[in-house]
Each structure stands twice: as structure tokens, then as C-alpha cells.
């Protein structure tokens, strides 16, 4: 056999053939490479929308122009017609349902007004209307700091970006009334460039840092819960971080269980308020939904908040995540039944069974706590000393923290029935401990018999019992809603009109 060189020498066309074939192969290989690149590049924009608004656009309607399905499903959070056995999408006056709560929160603004909230659509409207935020006017400031706005609106990340986090928290609630007018929406959870989920609230980022965890390492599935955990968590206002600022802080540096957060609060000797009757240094649990969910079986199986509360739905041949964030009980087919192939009625029964059993013991704890506060009040009246009362007050603080922890998150008894049941049980024990100590104190002061249980059969009677003048509070609030609020809204709208001009 001859070498290639010899062949080419004899027949030059073979050389040309080899040359052409090589050119063609390299050319095709190049085409293949550029085709791969092109199709990869396609992926970048095939699933990325063309955005026409700024990074911190707070108006959902702007986003809705590009994401009509997500937006129109979000608008359904305005519906208030769903009612389950213990909850639903309508506003519910919790103090009316359980007047005991008025006594438990005596001396704290929650005793004035506490409702089960409505959908995200009403986040702003409901915080305007609640008596807890007071009736600010030019002469009187709100009793609450601006920190209270933090979870209510996509105007929050916008404003934090403009003036800084601590400056955002600074001042009373009324001073930023015209800045925050859009309810919880798109920019709270989404990066406007990529539409990926993002954490927009510094408190959660700081909490992860305090636990030595890196939130940027969270998977997409974890983010589908973490965006909710920006708000649906236990928090407190830290007055020692920045001078003159109520800094929103999650008490997670020891961990996220009830006991670990309690340890955190005890270590810094924190109290939300001093109880009006018992004078105990109380903790107010906010809504530790995420923390309790973490202890449940759904969390340990990798189910995220969005899996049940924002189900994947199909509409006209399009599949997308429903942004109608709501109770899964209003859409069992797309939430529970994705995994649990049982009849709807059976699944409902399973949920209600857990809730009923937990509520049964929670009601007992509620009554015990009322007795604790009333008996402690009697003990003070009969001359009990600080030293005598100190261990009692500590028990009351811990018992009510346990009760509130389970009651404040409306989904707890389903999210984690075992943990919730455990917490209530330990709360009952602590409340009874307090009462045993109290009865010793009362007996040694010469008190005979049972301290009478007050008549708190209705919200009004309970509020009267703890000495609230609801009439004037309500009148002032109505005045605020009629006189001051329209100015806030007008100023906010005016500010937003200027956005359109600059775009």
C-alpha cells in the first residue's frame, strides 16, 4: 500500500478531495457548535419575559401587563367567600370568637382589636383599619413604628432601596403613610429581571446570617417556602441595634423551635409588654407559621408552602402557578390530591380532626391563663411581694408564650399537629404550676376560696373588664380613616404618577 503522499503525488485530485472533505467537516462541526449555542441562548429568552418596568416597581398592575395569568389569579386573593370550619378568607373578629384573648393581652394593643386577616390583596387596607395602629393626625403620632409596614407592601423594598433599611424602620407608622400604598405583591417575592424568586426583606437574610447559614445556597424548592418566611415568621422589634430605631429581627440565632426562641428572648431579657393585670413580662408570639411548618411531616417530605397554597393549575391549555394564595381546603383537588388519592370529604375530615383536637386543649389553656392573670392581680392587691411573685410571673410568661405560639399561626394545628399538641400540653402544665404557686401566696395572705372568674362572655364585657374605652378609640379611628387617610392615598398616587413620566 502506498502512503497518502504518494497517492496525492500521482493523482492530485485526491489531494483536492481530501481538502474539500476536511473543509466540509470543519464547516459542519462549526455549524453544529453555533446551533448548540443558538439553542442555548434561546432558552435564556424563551422563558424570560421582556420587562418594561424598573427593578422596584411596586404596582402589581404593571407586572400584570406581562403576566396576565399570574396577575389575574393574584387578584382573586380579594375573594372573601371561602369559609372552612375554623378559618377562611373572610375577616373574622377573633376577640369576639374568644373574648378570653382580651384578658390575655391586657395592657397590649392586641386587646383592642385582633382579626383573622384577609388575603394579600387587603394587606394595606386592613392595617389602615385596625385600631392597633391608632388614629394618627397632625397632633398625635401613631403608637406603632414604621417597622409595622415591613410586611405589607412591595413599596417596602423600593423605599428601603432608596433610603436604607434602618431609615425605613425609623419613625412612627404615620410618617410613611403616603409612601406605602400597594398591598403585598409581585416585587415582594420576584426579581424583576429574571422573575426568579428572591428575598426582598433584610430581616430573613440577617436571621440566616445569625444562624451561620447562607440563604443564597437555598434551592428553588426551598425558596418556594422562604419567600413566605420573609413575613410568616416569629419576629420582634430590636431597639438596641440602631439608635432610635425599632429594628425588625427574627429571634433565630439559637434556633427556630419554641424553646430555642424562648432562650433567645430570656438571654436578652426581652418582653413585648408588661401585662396589665398580672404585671408579668410577656412575650407576644407573632405568627411562627414557617417555624412550625418546619417541624411537620410535610416539610420533612420536601413539600413547600407554594405546593399547597399556590397550586399548579391549568387554564386554556396553559399551566402555571396559581397566585391565588389561599387555604388549600378551597382547592383540595390541586393541592392535597396531587399526592393523597383520597376522597375530598375524607381529606377534609382528616384536617378538621387534627384542628378540633388541638383546639380542644388550646381552649383549656386559654381559660387557665385568664385565671392566672386574675389570680396574680388578686395576689398583688393582697400585698404579695416582688420576690414571691417573680417565679409565678415567669411561669405565666412561659405558659402564654406557648399558647400564643400555637394560636398566632392559624395553620399550625394542621402544619404540625404533634409539635403543636406538645407545646399546648407544656403550656397547660406551666399555667397550672403558676396557679399552684399563686394559691400558696393567696392562702398565706389569708385569702379563702376561689378567686372569681370574671364575666368575659363577650368581647365588650372583656374589654370593659380590663378598662378599655373602646368608644373613643373607635371614634378616633373613624376620624383618621375619613380625614387623614385620603390625604395619604392622594399623596401616594401623586408620587406614582411621576414614575410614569420618568419612564
Amino acid at each position, binding site marked *: *500500500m502506498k*502512503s497518502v503522499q504518494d497517492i496525492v503525488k500521482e493523482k492530485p485530485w485526491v489531494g483536492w478531495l481530501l481538502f474539500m472533505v476536511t473543509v466540509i467537516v*470543519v464547516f459542519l462541526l462549526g455549524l453544529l457548535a453555533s446551533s*448548540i449555542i443558538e439553542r442555548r441562548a434561546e*432558552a435564556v429568552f424563551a422563558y424570560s419575559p421582556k420587562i418594561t418596568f424598573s427593578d422596584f416597581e411596586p404596582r402589581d398592575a404593571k407586572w400584570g401587563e406581562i403576566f396576565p395569568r*399570574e396577575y389575574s389569579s393574584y387578584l382573586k386573593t380579594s375573594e372573601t367567600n371561602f369559609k372552612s370550619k375554623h378559618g377562611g378568607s373572610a375577616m373574622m373578629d377573633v376577640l369576639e370568637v374568644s373574648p378570653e384573648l382580651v384578658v390575655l393581652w391586657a395592657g397590649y394593643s392586641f386587646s383592642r382589636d385582633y382579626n383573622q386577616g384577609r388575603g394579600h390583596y387587603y394587606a394595606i387596607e386592613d392595617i389602615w383599619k385596625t385600631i392597633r395602629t391608632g388614629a394618627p393626625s397632625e397632633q398625635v403620632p401613631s403608637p406603632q413604628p414604621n417597622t409595622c409596614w415591613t410586611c405589607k407592601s412591595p413599596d417596602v423594598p423600593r423605599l428601603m432601596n432608596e433610603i436604607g433599611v434602618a431609615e425605613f424602620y425609623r419613625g412612627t407608622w404615620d410618617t410613611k403613610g403616603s409612601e406605602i400604598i400597594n398591598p403585598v405583591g409581585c416585587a415582594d417575592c420576584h426579581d424583576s429581571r429574571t422573575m426568579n424568586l428572591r428575598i426582598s426583606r433584610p430581616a430573613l437574610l440577617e436571621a440566616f446570617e445569625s444562624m451561620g447559614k447562607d440563604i443564597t445556597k437555598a434551592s428553588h*424548592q426551598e425558596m418556594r417556602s422562604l419567600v413566605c418566611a420573609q413575613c410568616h415568621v416569629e419576629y420582634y422589634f430590636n431597639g438596641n441595634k440602631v439608635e432610635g430605631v425599632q429594628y425588625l429581627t427574627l429571634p433565630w440565632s439559637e434556633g427556630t423551635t419554641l424553646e430555642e426562641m424562648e432562650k433567645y428572648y430570656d438571654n436578652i431579657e426581652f418582653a413585648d409588654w408588661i401585662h396589665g393585670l398580672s404585671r408579668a413580662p410577656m412575650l407576644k408570639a407573632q405568627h411562627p407559621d414557617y417555624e412550625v411548618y418546619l417541624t411537620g411531616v410535610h416539610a420533612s417530605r420536601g413539600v413547600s408552602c407554594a405546593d399547597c397554597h399556590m397550586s399548579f393549575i391549568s387554564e386554556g391549555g396553559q399551566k402555571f402557578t396559581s397566585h391565588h394564595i389561599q387555604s388549600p381546603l378551597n382547592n383540595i383537588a390541586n393541592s392535597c390530591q396531587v399526592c393523597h388519592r383520597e376522597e375530598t370529604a375524607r381529606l377534609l375530615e382528616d384536617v378538621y380532626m387534627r384542628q378540633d383536637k388541638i383546639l380542644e386543649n388550646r381552649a383549656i389553656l386559654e381559660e387557665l391563663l385568664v385565671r392566672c392573670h386574675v389570680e396574680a392581680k388578686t395576689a398583688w392587691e393582697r400585698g404579695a411581694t416582688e420576690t414571691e411573685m417573680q417565679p409565678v410571673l415567669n411561669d405565666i410568661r412561659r405558659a402564654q408564650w406557648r399558647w400564643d405560639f400555637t394560636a398566632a399561626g392559624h395553620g399550625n394545628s394542621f402544619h404540625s399537629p404533634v409539635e403543636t399538641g406538645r407545646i399546648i400540653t407544656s403550656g397547660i402544665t406551666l399555667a397550672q404550676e403558676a396557679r399552684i404557686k399563686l394559691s400558696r401566696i393567696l392562702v398565706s395572705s389569708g385569702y379563702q376560696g376561689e378567686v372569681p372568674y370574671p364575666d368575659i362572655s363577650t368581647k365588650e364585657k372583656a374589654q370593659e373588664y380590663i378598662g378599655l374605652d373602646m368608644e373613643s378609640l373607635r371614634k378616633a379611628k373613624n376620624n383618621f380613616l375619613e380625614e387623614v387617610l385620603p390625604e395619604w392615598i392622594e399623596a401616594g398616587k401623586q408620587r406614582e404618577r411621576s414614575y410614569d413620566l420618568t419612564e
Partner: protein
Amino acid sequence: MGFIRKLLPPEKWTFPVIITVAAFTGLASYSFYISNAPSYLGDKPETCVNCHIMAPQYATWSHSSHRETTNCNDCHVPQNNVFSKYYFKAKDGLRHATVFTLRREPQVIFIREDGKEVVHRNCIRCHENLLTDSRLMLYSDKIVMDRKDRKCWECHRETPHGRVNSLSSVPYARVPLPESPVPEWLKKTREK
């Protein structure tokens, strides 16, 4: 050996030949790299969305209960032995790559006959106890019929991808599409 020696270029050509062959190899490895080729040997679902037209399949799977226990390969390639697994994977994969490269993908992708058989067998592989009754130890016509004369999804039509799977059925679904192939250090130098 003699044959190989014949192909070798004469001494004075060594340099240009080395350069030419290296250019070839370089171009080939570049294609290999940007197409994420090594990922095709593994089982990660992210691999399947290397081609973005698989996004509807990925998104529907990741919202189904099957996401907790299966990846794409568990159902879509044979799992009876390693040879048939990789043979099928190579066969299907090369067809998919060809169709995708030539832009011949249809608007609605349907599974082919041999793919159906594989999926059906894989349903049975995990859900066998739903089809047999070990207490009876007897041959039942119904069991055989249910397994052989129809496919599982003729009844379980929504499992797990749902019924509608056109290329445009999941607008803006968040799926792990391949990121830019430009390495971080290079991007950084560009930013400066």
C-alpha cells in the same frame, strides 16, 4: 501498525498536521462542552432541560408527587439492566439531539411506541403490588389484561405530566435551564 504508519505524514509535515488535528479536536471538545455532553451519562433531571423544549415536561414533573421519588430516567429509560438502559438512552438521546439540532421538533411532543412500552414497564416496576394480589397466588385474567391490553395512563391520564404538553404550555415556568457557558473568571475580567 503498518497501515497506521502509512497514514502518518512525512517528517516535514508534522508541525502543520499537529496544528490541524488539534484544531479539529478543539472544535469537537468545544461542542462537547457547550452541549453539556458528560451530563447525559447521569440521571439528573436538569440534564433533560439542556434542551429548553423539555421545560413543560420538567415543570409538570416538578409540580407532581412523582418528583419526590423519581427522576426522568426512572420512567423513560429501561431499568432492567445497565446495557439496555444505556442502549436505549443513546438511541433516544441521539434522535432527540438530531431533531433538536435540525429544529424539527413538533409543537406538541408525543411519546413514541417504544418509549411508551418503557414507561409502562417502569410503572409496573414500582407499582407492582397494585397489580398483583400476592395472597391469592393464582392466575387471574384481569391482572393480565390490565397489564397487557392497555397502558396505565389510559386511566391515570394526569399522572404525572398532566394532559396538555405543548411547547408553550408553561409560560415562564422556573426550570433550571443551562446557564451561560462562559466561566466566572472570564466574566469577571470582562466586567473590569
